[in-house]
């Protein structure tokens, strides 16, 4: 039912949008602020395809690094990992559930199936059903989500923490979603 309210809410917003346009309030909005925002957002394609060291190493038809470089590659990638300030690697699984499915945040269902109720899940990554019963170390799970390249060189799995797509706290929440016995993943 909550979903429908959200939908209804968004409809209301859409319905109100033209009405707002007709009545601009120039006095209240300082002009420099929105302009600055637009400037900030204006990336170009050339900006966005600039690569970091790891990306450069992975950009080859083999899709990986040579065997003699793997060890060094792992070390470099491990160094990029940061942990939550309170040191807790397991957060709130309910928050994790939201982040896991949110296309603007984790978007994990794009590649992984986990909760059997989620039918629209991809098949690129391994199925995470009953992940919590697989005896994985929570530190491993955290680090894997933060920087998958610290475990599989040039993995297709994006480096959520390295690129600030998820904060350390948010990653901890997803760790909880995967490990908690209460989570639908493990039910």
């Amino acid at each position, binding site marked *: 039912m909550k979903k429908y309210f959200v939908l209804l809410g968004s409809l209301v917003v859409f319905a109100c949008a033209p009405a707002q346009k007709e009545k601009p309030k120039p006095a209240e909005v300082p002009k420099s602020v929105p302009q600055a925002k637009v400037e900030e957002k204006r990336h170009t394609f050339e900006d966005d395809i600039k690569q970091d060291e790891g990306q450069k190493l992975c950009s080859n038809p083999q*899709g990986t690094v040579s065997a003699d470089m793997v060890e060094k590659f792992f070390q470099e990638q491990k160094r990029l990992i940061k942990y939550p300030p309170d040191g807790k690697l397991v957060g709130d699984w309910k928050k994790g559930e939201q982040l896991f499915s949110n296309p603007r945040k984790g978007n994990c*269902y794009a590649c992984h199936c986990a909760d059997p109720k989620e039918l629209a*899940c991809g098949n690129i990554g391994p199925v995470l059903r009953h992940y919590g019963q697989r005896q994985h170390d929570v530190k491993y799970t955290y680090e894997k989500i933060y920087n998958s390249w610290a475990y599989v060189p*040039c993995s*297709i799995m994006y480096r959520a923490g390295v690129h600030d797509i998820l904060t350390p706290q948010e990653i901890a929440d997803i760790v909880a979603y995967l490990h908690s016995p209460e989570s639908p993943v493990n039910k």
Partner: protein
Amino acid sequence: MRKLWLLPLVLGAVGGVTLYALAQQENPAEEVKRQKEMLLKEMGILPGDVYAEQGRDMFNKPMGTQGKSCASCHGQDGRYLRGAYAHMPRYYKDMDSVADLDSRIKYCMEKYMGVKDVKHDINFKSIATYVATLSNGMKMDVKLDNPKEKEMYQKGRELWYARVGKMDFSCAVCHDTFGGYRIRLQTLAKVKEDKVSTHWPAYRFSNDQLWTMEDRIRGCYNQIRVTPPPHFSWATVALSLYMAYESNGGIIETPGFVR
């Protein structure tokens, strides 16, 4: 008006059923076939072919300040353009650069017809689609004879393998390594194996739009959260050339019909 609250409920229900139906569909090729048959049954013609017909009209119609149509140079119904698309993108002497289908049409419209501010709109895409259909049934045969073609191909190849942006994706990880797998319920195209350049421009039934290869490339970059390269830019030409060359030997069949 009072029943407006019902709308989200109905939308939700329809969405849910569609999602469920999609999840049950094991074979995406079957789904495409079914959609195609359904549209043909309902309308007697595919939307892509309607656009191509519209493109034919535009092709024969004078535009711009020079009072010329595409047909003024390329013959009524483009008879001198038969097979042109099979060798595109390629180097053009008058431009002194490599152009894909879209960039070439833009150049012609501006330089020879005097059209100002050529936009990549539905009329433009219809013309592009029509020009592509003039090579239907022929083999894709892109050559890299000119040094600029080789250079552009090399740039396209680099872009193809470049892991970029916040998602660390490259074209290759999705369309080589994981081609045939699913992102959510969307199956990723096996770009080289299936020689996809042979069926673009294409009509996409999932969002009822006609797309050229440039739109497809921009769409992909948008999805991996990289600012898409502008239309008619070096990046779209380079990737188009790379994919077209990799599609050599495939039979051209445009407009494609895709999800």
